[in-house]
């Protein structure tokens, strides 16, 4: 059988002012019909650049320096854009990482799907609509009629990614390139989307090149895997073989970085938790009002958090888990008084947060946000961002004292004190999250709310941030409220777990009783969504 895609000795160069960067240095890949090949690596390893090179979508500053890319025997390197267009869509389909930005916000789903159908299948307008409808059914969208009329912003992240898959699958490509298709999605939706891609590929014998950084995803979907590091493929082979006996130490690191369900972090148990509650929520609810006069929409009330009671004990790590939209982030903000509550009481260390002084509360009660890229002010140096609250809340007596504390905080999170006079954009994603953590711990708080602190990061970066958090907890005597959507991480880190769904807390249990038979179905659903990096199924291509 001839391969659908053959990449030989591919070199891609980026011309930067004053230097040329070799993003890909001699990559060899082969994808057969009906096969799923996973290309794995950290961000910056060159895996997305390889995919972009196949489609001829490299940025202007990049060029293919050497090598060949053959699609069903046709050489793609050196073809004009016009010739390449005959392969894009019809021959090679693409699913992008972020369905928010890859769908056109000003057109309805129906018109975007319809246009693609008319272009590639050469059907009439009404037929195109039927084709679009059928495809939405196929990708598991139940209210296809409503979705066809909807604009992208009206759909959830999972729905949008389903639409992207319909858009890519509709023209019947022989090769589907999926660039981190589930990184922006929560664990439950991730599994649904991966299964969908697998199902479609199986039905139509489409070859799939799946790009990911997560070995959990690899083991769930692919038959073969290629591991990429710094532009070079360091290891390739069948998924089962690579997972069982990885040859390259880098592969080993990537596999180990995936948290496995039931495998506790060895240091997570070191700290002992007392019984005194530090944070107590008693039947709190909050509502948001959407629409109303002047917005052109009907006024509607969304109950984001419904009647939640919860207590976090001093010294423990409490994990709060749920799908996106379940209200867990709102609950966290509500606990710190960042969003107003409609009813209920929140007490911190015995005092109602509404009564205790704002300064006192803020100093002892801190947040680390999900995306450090947006949670840091882009126009202010990180040192100043850490120092400001210290001065404001009276933690530092003068500028010199504040600077000393900033340096100490940066060292605690594994950064260099010399980084203090830099701007956030000069850091990598993982480093930015370290800055976010430094900003919170510089105040020496007692309770730290971690709102999905690692979900914007690579698996290997995630592991190092989690290590850091455990170190800091032991060193500074912290209590954590850890919010996440990946049960494996929560179970590995936390002492007790609370599961949220549609604004309600469905159950709370000690981490050790995760597998107990009386667990709620919602907890089981989250458990099923975890993708462990073990070869559960043998997907060898025949």
């Amino acid at each position, binding site marked *: 059988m001839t391969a659908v895609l053959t990449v030989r000795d591919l070199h891609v160069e980026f011309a930067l002012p004053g230097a040329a960067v070799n993003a890909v240095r001699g990559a060899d890949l082969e994808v057969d019909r009906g096969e799923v090949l996973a290309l794995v690596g950290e961000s910056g390893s060159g895996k997305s650049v390889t995919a972009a090179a196949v489609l001829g979508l490299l940025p202007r500053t990049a060029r293919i320096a050497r090598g060949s890319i053959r699609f069903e025997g046709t050489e793609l390197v050196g073809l004009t854009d016009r010739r390449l267009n005959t392969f894009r869509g019809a021959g090679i389909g693409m699913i992008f990482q972020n369905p928010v930005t890859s769908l056109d916000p000003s057109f309805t789903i129906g018109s975007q799907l319809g246009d693609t159908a008319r272009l590639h299948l050469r059907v009439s307008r009404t037929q195109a609509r039927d084709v679009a409808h059928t495809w939405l059914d196929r990708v598991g969208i139940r209210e296809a009629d409503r979705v066809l009329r909807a604009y992208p912003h009206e759909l959830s992240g999972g729905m949008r990614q389903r639409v992207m898959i319909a858009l890519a699958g509709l023209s019947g490509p022989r090769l589907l390139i999926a660039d981190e298709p589930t990184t922006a999605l929560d664990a439950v939706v991730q599994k649904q989307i991966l299964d969908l891609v697998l199902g479609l590929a199986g039905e139509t014998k489409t070859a799939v090149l799946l790009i990911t950084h997560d070995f959990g995803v690899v083991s769930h979907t692919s038959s073969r895997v290629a591991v990429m590091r710094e532009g070079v493929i360091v290891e390739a082979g069948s998924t089962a073989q690579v997972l069982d006996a990885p040859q390259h130490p880098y592969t080993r690191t990537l596999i180990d970085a995936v948290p496995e369900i039931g495998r506790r972090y060895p240091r997570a148990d070191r700290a002992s938790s007392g019984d005194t509650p530090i944070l107590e929520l008693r039947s709190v609810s909050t509502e948001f009002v959407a629409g109303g006069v002047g917005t052109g929409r009907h006024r509607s009330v969304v109950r984001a958090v419904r009647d939640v009671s919860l207590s976090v004990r001093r010294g423990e790590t409490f994990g709060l888990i749920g799908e996106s939209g379940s209200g867990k982030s709102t609950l966290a*903000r509500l606990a710190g008084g960042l969003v107003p509550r409609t009813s209920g009481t929140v007490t911190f260390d015995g005092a109602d947060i509404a009564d205790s002084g704002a300064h006192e509360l803020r*100093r002892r009660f801190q947040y680390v946000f999900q995306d450090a890229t947006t949670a840091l002010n882009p126009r202010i140096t990180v040192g100043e961002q850490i120092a400001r609250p210290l001065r404001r809340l009276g933690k530092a007596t003068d500028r010199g004292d504040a600077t000393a504390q900033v340096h100490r905080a940066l060292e605690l999170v594994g950064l260099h004190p010399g980084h203090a006079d830099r701007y956030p954009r000069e850091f990598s994603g993982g480093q930015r999250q370290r800055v976010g953590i430094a900003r919170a711990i510089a105040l020496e708080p007692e309770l730290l709310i971690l709102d999905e602190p690692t979900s914007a990061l690579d698996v290997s970066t995630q592991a190092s941030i989690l290590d*850091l958090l455990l170190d800091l907890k032991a060193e500074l005597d912290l209590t954590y409220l850890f919010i996440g959507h990946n049960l494996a991480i929560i179970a590995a880190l936390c002492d007790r777990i609370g599961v949220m769904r549609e604004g309600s807390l469905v159950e709370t249990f000690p981490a050790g009783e995760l597998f107990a038979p009386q667990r709620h179905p919602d907890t089981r659903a989250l458990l099923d969504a975890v993708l462990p990096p073990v070869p559960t199924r043998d997907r060898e291509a025949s």
Partner: protein
Amino acid sequence: MSTDTHGAAPPRLRRSFPARFVRNREAFLGLVVLVVVIGMSALAPWLAPQDPNLGDARNVLAPVGAPGHLLGTDDQGRDVLSRVIHGGRGALVVAIASVTVAVGIGTALGLLAAFAGRRTSGLLMRVVDLMFAFPVILVALSLAAIIQPGAWVLIGTVVFAAVPYVTRIVFAEARIEREKDYVEAARSLGASEAAIVRTEVLPNLISSVVIYGTSLVGVNIVFTASLSALGLGIQPPDADWGRMISEGAKVLVTGHPGVASFPAVAILLVALAFNWLGDGLRDVLNP
């Protein structure tokens, strides 16, 4: 931990602001032109070869290159070169001062509207809409009727005309910034609303405000010249580019194009320079 960075701090990824500025040809050229023009205006009494208001009835409308008058003379026999050198003083001071005031007021109003409650914000922005709808020439005429025509009329008119634009731009940008996570983070770190607006959001708006303000100066040099040409601005006999164009226009058809053209070229050059600087700054400040 793979991302440990103990040891020497790694090299900076970006060039410093002055280095980027000098590398940006547009911004640099704009700045050079402005420095030259502003320098010339400031040193006008020493640079100008003759008194700009000294007429010579025996030597009216001398051609370009006439002895003693490099750019010729106007219909009253005044030296055009001296008048061009002097004529920028009023226009530049008026345009820069009034745009600075307008940017200050507009930024304050825009931020207030973006962070205030629904009612205050709605009221403010509707007032701004009214200002948009008001004919600017009518403002200039009313001002000229109340106070003597002169520099203050120009300043008042430009401020009135520019404030709504600046307010709109700052309002729109501040609304976007307000929803960003760093504002919530600042709140969780104990910052008051006033501190958030002043120390967190404002630094993120400065670059757009500076860029917009720079282009506004260019536009308003032209605008104040038109008002002066209509007789509402700088009064004769003082030299002013706008005034010179309107006076020169009378003799344009009789074959003396120099009298109106040289001040026109000066206005064009300064307006262009301000726009280059604005465009260049945008590239330098927002890479």
